[in-house]
């Protein structure tokens, strides 16, 4: 059992600054992720109109049992007529090419760009911080791990320490960096709220910053024909049953007290 007396200045000038810098880097990465996201493109009036019609059809199928039977019937007639007639469709551009290549669509490329941005925001800061810690804090023993490690870890965790006989339980600042990298998620959640960019360290897709605008943009998958979707939705609405919770509600309420 090797007992070392460490300089208290190592705690003041190495241990705590590394933790502080790691927290700041996490917050900075969160901010940079949000700033690097593209602004959602402004949709035209016709595009919003057709999307809203589809949303109303979805909502009716999900919540129709809260309406009166007459209300359900009236909405079914209106939606079936609107969806089948196609009067709310966006006017077709005569010059648009048919059967567009899905890989060439703007939305697909935009999605790929978002993924690459997320990856970059994870890889680049890690490389810079690791280099900075290796250059700036090399040669110090910071921690004593409560468990032993084998000799192969010596070159990694005791980088910069020139003696051969030091036990591998004593590790240098690079270990403290890794501990902070994976251990500060709770701190980030406390400072930045849930769904923050800093705590998704292991998210390989990099799809951080999920927002409703993105959800709206992703509702229509690229390459899909919206007119066919409307016809399909009309059939779904047509087969909707007229079951309503309001029918015989008085009788069911009084039955509870019988």
């Amino acid at each position, binding site marked *: 059992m090797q007992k070392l*007396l460490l*300089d208290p200045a190592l705690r003041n000038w190495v241990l*705590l600054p590394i933790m502080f810098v790691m927290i700041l880097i996490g917050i*900075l990465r969160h901010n940079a992720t949000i700033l690097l996201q593209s*602004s959602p493109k402004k949709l035209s009036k016709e595009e919003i109109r057709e999307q809203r019609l589809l949303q109303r059809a979805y909502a009716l199928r999900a919540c129709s049992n809260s309406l009166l039977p007459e209300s359900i019937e009236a909405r079914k007639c209106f939606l079936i007529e609107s969806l089948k007639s196609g009067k709310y469709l966006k006017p077709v551009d005569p010059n648009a090419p048919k059967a567009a290549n899905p890989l060439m669509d703007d939305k697909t490329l935009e999605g790929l760009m978002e993924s690459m941005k997320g990856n970059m925001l994870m890889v680049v800061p890690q490389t810079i911080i690791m280099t900075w810690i290796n250059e700036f804090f090399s040669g110090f023993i910071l921690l004593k791990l409560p468990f032993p490690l084998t000799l192969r870890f010596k070159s990694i965790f005791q980088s910069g320490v020139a*003696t*051969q006989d030091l036990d591998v339980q004593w590790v240098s600042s690079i270990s403290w960096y890794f501990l902070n990298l994976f251990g500060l998620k709770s701190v980030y959640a406390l400072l930045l709220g849930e769904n923050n960019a800093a705590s998704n360290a292991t998210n390989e897709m990099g799809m951080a910053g999920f927002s409703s605008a993105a959800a709206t943009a992703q509702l229509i998958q690229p390459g899909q024909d919206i007119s066919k979707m409307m016809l399909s939705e009309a059939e779904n609405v047509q087969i909707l049953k007229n079951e309503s919770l309001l029918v015989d509600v008085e009788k069911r309420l009084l039955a509870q007290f019988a």
Partner: protein
Amino acid sequence: VLIDEAGKNDFEISLLGKVNDLVYDTKNEYLYAVSQKGLLAKLNASNGDVIWRQSIAPETSQLNYNPVTNFIITVDKDYLYIWNSKNGILDRKIELADGKGKLFEVNKGFVYLNPHTRKFIELDLQASFSISIERDLQLDAISFLTYAEKNYVLFKRDGQFVLQALDHNYAVYGPETVLNVPENAQLLVTEKDVIIYSSNGVIYGIHVSMADISQLLIDEYKTFEWSSIPGKRHGYSITVDSQSTPVTYLFVIIDSEFVLIDEYIHEDTEALGYIHMEDNQTFSRVFAVANQIKFAPATVITIPNQLSRPVFRLFTFAEGEISAIVILDDGTFFSFSNTELVWKREEALAYAINPSILPTTLLTSYQKSIQDEENSSVSFLNRWYRHFNQLIDFLKHPHGFTSSSVLDDAFTTKIIIPTSTGSIFCLSSDPKQVHRILWRYDFNINPESVESWLLDISDEDPKFAFVHQWNDAFSFYILNASDGSVISQKSRDFKADEFYYVDNISKNLPNQIFAVKDYKVLPLTGDNSIFEKISQEANSIFVYTSETKVEGFSISADLTMDVQWSYNLAEGEIVIASIRRNPHEIVASFGRVLQNREVMYKYLNPNLFALFSKCKNDLVVYVMDSVTGSIVYQNKHQGIILFDKVYGVFSENWLVYSYQSDVPNLSTKIISVELFEGSHSNEKIDSNEIYSRHNDYRPYAFTKAYIFDREITTLGVTNTPQGITSRDVLLGLSSNQVAMIPQALLSPMRPVLRPNEKANDASFIPYEPIIPLNDDMVLSYNKRVYGVSQITSGITNFESTTLVLSTGLDVFFTRTAPSMPYDMLSSHFDKKQLMLTTFGILLAVLLTKPLVKKKQLNTKWYN
């Protein structure tokens, strides 16, 4: 040493040794001194500080200084040196044909006369440069004299002494005067304007202005001593031994006649001097005994002299701030102004022998709090509480950004320095301490040999033991190392053969010291019952070394030497030195890990010692087991030049020694030997076998030889509390430096590669026969550390750092981290850059925060 560490963690005490001659420059308040240790120095006369020093031949006993010019002249047997007195730069070095010449002061400078040749060297010293001219004299000169701006030469012709006047170019000019001196006369003094000779037991004097008349001075003498008294009026003192009592006569020259002014019969031990008083044109007598300086008008100065040491030199001055300088026989240097002691130089430190560094101690409260913390059942919470408190203190005190009090106290300790003059000094290791000597005690006057040990190195009450020995007696003392008080003292009226130190730390017994005389054991510490316990230990074997024999003995119950084994050296072989491991050494690992994860197991036998012996011109090296007497390693080296310059250190399982030889060429060699349990990796023997009395295992020795490009004056080894830090070899160099060689450079397992061959084992540096001395290896950076003859290392509380003390003439103290300071903040850690980086990132976070808020707000409009 690193550049930014120079001067911060070290101190040096510049010493001179015992001063032989002294010149006082009253106009500029400087002192120029030459010492027995071979130094020429310039001191500030106001405070005694050294301005510059130069190394000269130790036999130089006189310096010549003319305050009109800026040059000092020293002469040894081979060269004449002219030094610039302002900065100590050697201005001129003149080779002398043989060492029998003499320097004379003439009208406008100095002349070096080589007898029995007709040539001399004129030294023309100006204010800013010096000229040396070799001139031809047509006479077989004996000496030069000068008087009234005229120069004379004294020579012998046809059995008669003749005085010849010279012109300003040292050519023969003017009349010659035949001296009335008998042919068999013995010339005693021929200096400036005075010739003193003796004939038939009578002392005569001749003055140059009346050279044809001999004047009787003293009619009976046995010994003769002469000095001229500085001042505007010429005064001369002659001390003779009349009827076994020294008597001093003071003469002045009045109208070319010697006039007796004063006659003084000395007491037993006195130093005498005269001061010329300008106001009343008289001479004042000054003499010094061991404790006092007495001036003639009943003025007494007290010399702080503990043991009433004899006065070695007394210098008295009529002008300037200093009135008297006293140098005791241990070199202590006192400077008095009127009747007050102005400053004092502890020159006895220049004769240090076997210094010890006490272990450092942290703040008691700090150490105790950590100890209580570990013993508590809630040690985790206590540890957090301690760190939190320390952090609060750190933030409260702004000075915490620049220094750490715990770190400074961790290296503060005491240094105990015994001297061969019989003193014990205690120095503080704090570089910031101005008055470095904590205490000093004198015990004896100039013992013949001094040995010392640290007896008890516990933090509470460290004890220091030493012995002073003479031809027919010795005195043994135990001191309290904190304040120097004497705990016990023993004296015997015979000389002991050897003293032994018994390390009993592992047996929970106090450490002991005993002496051996004629195969009898004499306990010096404790009582006989402890030694009875020691005698029952199976492995308590001590090595007794004489010139031709090595014996291992144990202590029998009746305290006699019980010889267990004996080894006789070969015919003509003589023991030079014996080296033993540091008994307090702790070894951190019992193997050396190779690149392929296999282990070479070290042969860690604490009973090993190394023996150096001389056989004709060969050096024989043994490594022996002190318990069994077997030789585990032996080597022989040829062509050794100086056998008193063989040095070695023994540590763990390796031995490093150095010598000078002319095989294959004249150079310094460093040999590294390392002992392993097997010749290949993963070979291990039973450890219990090593410590038994029947251990006959022969370890495998790996050896490499290196050439070093400096002359080595001593070797040492670094030491840390747990032995984790690599043990590097400390060197004293003849270039007045203290250096450190990393252990990796000296490893005997460095592979010997063919040209263009790749090293397949990254554990060792490929072998290079020459060890370079890089600048960062020099611990004393650009300081001159004169006379390095002993290097002592001490442990600190931090595992990475070793304290290093160099003694021999100067005292130099520093600390070093052989494996880099891995447990403390290094000195080149850039705190400003760290704070700038942190603030930069913080600024980036603060700047991007409103941008993020704005962007998030804009995004909500698309919902």
